[in-house]
């Protein structure tokens, strides 16, 4: 059913793509073909196997926790900079994977941001993502 719904949504969006200056459908062909293929395949799936594979629900809370952490982590990077966000995300990720040793979690909070910062933003010279509201890099002068 999800395939059919995505297909219908994509078909509607495909018709929203403007034709080119000569009025041809050039830019619409592929999005439309992909959308219609999705509707067709979704209908075949619905007819062939209404149930589909059953997903085990036991691990869903942990999956949801990791997904939540992922989204909040990216938002935190944009708001508070890479160092603070990673210092919080590293022990939380370990916690989700059932690491409970306080020293290990504390070490991860300190070492992870430091090591990633050193490798990617210092050695490779990638410009770090700066926090919109606050960034430790402003306090320590870029280092």
């Amino acid at each position, binding site marked *: 059913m999800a*395939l059919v719904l*995505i297909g219908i949504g*994509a078909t509607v*969006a495909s018709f929203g*793509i*403007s034709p*080119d*200056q000569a009025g041809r459908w*050039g*830019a619409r*062909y*592929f*999005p439309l*073909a*992909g*959308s219609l*293929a*999705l509707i067709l*395949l*979704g209908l*075949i*799936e619905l007819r*062939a*196997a209404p149930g*589909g*594979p059953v*997903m*085990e629900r036991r*691990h869903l809370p*942990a*999956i949801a926790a*990791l*997904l939540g952490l*992922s*989204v909040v*982590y*990216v938002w935190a*990077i*944009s708001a508070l900079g*890479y160092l603070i966000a*990673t210092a919080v*995300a*590293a022990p939380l*990720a*370990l916690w*989700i*994977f*059932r*690491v409970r040793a306080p020293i*290990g979690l504390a070490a*991860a909070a300190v070492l*992870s941001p430091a090591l*990633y910062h050193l490798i*990617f933003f210092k050695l*490779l*010279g*990638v*410009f770090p*993502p700066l926090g919109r509201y606050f960034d430790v890099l402003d306090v320590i002068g870029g280092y």
Partner: protein
Amino acid sequence: MDIFPALLGVLSDPLLLGWVVLAAIVGMIVGAIPGLTASAAIAMLLPLTFYMEPLPALAFLYVIGKSGRYGGSIAAILFNTPGTAASAATQLDGYPLARQDKAGKAMKVATLSSVIGDFTGEILLIAGVAWIAALALKLGPPELFAVYFAAFIVIGSVIGKSVTRGLASAALGVLVAMIGLDPISSTERFTFGSFDLTNGIGLVPLMIGIFVLGEVFAQIEQRGQPSEMASGGGDANHNRLTWREYKPCLPHVARSSFIGAFIGMLPGLGSAIAAFVAYGEGKRRATSPEQWGQGALEGVAAPEAANNAVSGPSMAPLLTLGIPGSTIGAILIGVFLIHGIQIGPTMFLTSRDLIYALFACGLIGIVIYGLIGYFGAAFVGRFIVRIPTRVLYPVIFLTSFVAAYTSRGNLFDVYVMVAAGFAGWAMRKLDFNPAAFVISFVLAGGAEETFRQALLLSDNGLMIFVTRPLALLFLVIGCAALMMRLRSLKKQSGAGTVTP
């Protein structure tokens, strides 16, 4: 003959050799870790290679792909868990051998067979690729679109348990690739007013999400499960491999190498299919087929030769037509593009030295992982079992974020990576096909371009695809592959539980 100067050039460059050695070790370790694949390692390390020269960058990732395929056999034999899908067939006889305290012998057979298979594939690639490229130069847009079409159908329908879900994965890949500005008319497509989406979805964050973060999500379900390792060392007599023992494996290795090389040339089929086809064919021709599955050395040799023989020829469609034959090929496209190298048949005119140097690195990489594997596979196994997955996967989780950001210095890409990671996990759980999704995402741009060019050339609209004989041939090949797959699934569903 271009390969000999290239080999000399690579051997006289210690830094490049260092990258090849490092890649052989990294690939073997990553391949041997259950759950992690060479594709995941390459996707994660891809942004690092943007800061390298083109040849070391390509060689590093190419050799990781090769040794990663081999590394999967270590996990299959020692842990009864295939490190990669391609080594699942190796597990059938490898683990029973390990249970008989012959893990060292099994790993030596796997190493020798992988090296012979990989060499065969690489030599066939080197011998045939320039010829295929010359032929590809003669193909026009209608023929090229027909090749793309056949690739979509084969990739979507042949891999995985369900044809409809495989094809749906391919269609989803096409739709996601359409996000952004139309490359010809600059019309916005599927951007929904978002400025970030006008740049399209980046290949690197998508790959990292699907292959790396998706695996981290999957590993949550394995939390707390201890790794059991069969004895990797043991009695020296049990683990010494004699010529008398390996000699019966050689016909299987030779046959499987050619099976793997042939399957490797076809876009999307990959090592796992090659390994199982070779295993089935080997068992059918074996003098004692009843021993296969109980711990036959030939049962390790055949799939290992086949899955590694795929590696070289799978580069042929990528280098000659710009069509990636595997997920690793799809990732390598990113490296070529970042370094401004136009892939396709003209590469053999513009970047010939680079291509042959890459092949030379591949050959040297095979020797290196062969030597390390023959003498040190048991050590690698013991090393892997000491890595706690509850620490490893959080580290991979954090690395995937910074790697996705590094590709374009853009946090939107990191959101894309998170979404792709969750989608990759969900696709695996629901029997969709992440590999088909990613390869179709990569193919879609080229397919659309050739389709629209063909229509501009045509006086009869879509009829151009059926009036040009070569184009028609490829369209028929695509449809025939779909029909054959449906027939084979129908047969299987009569006996088992496979969905069409």
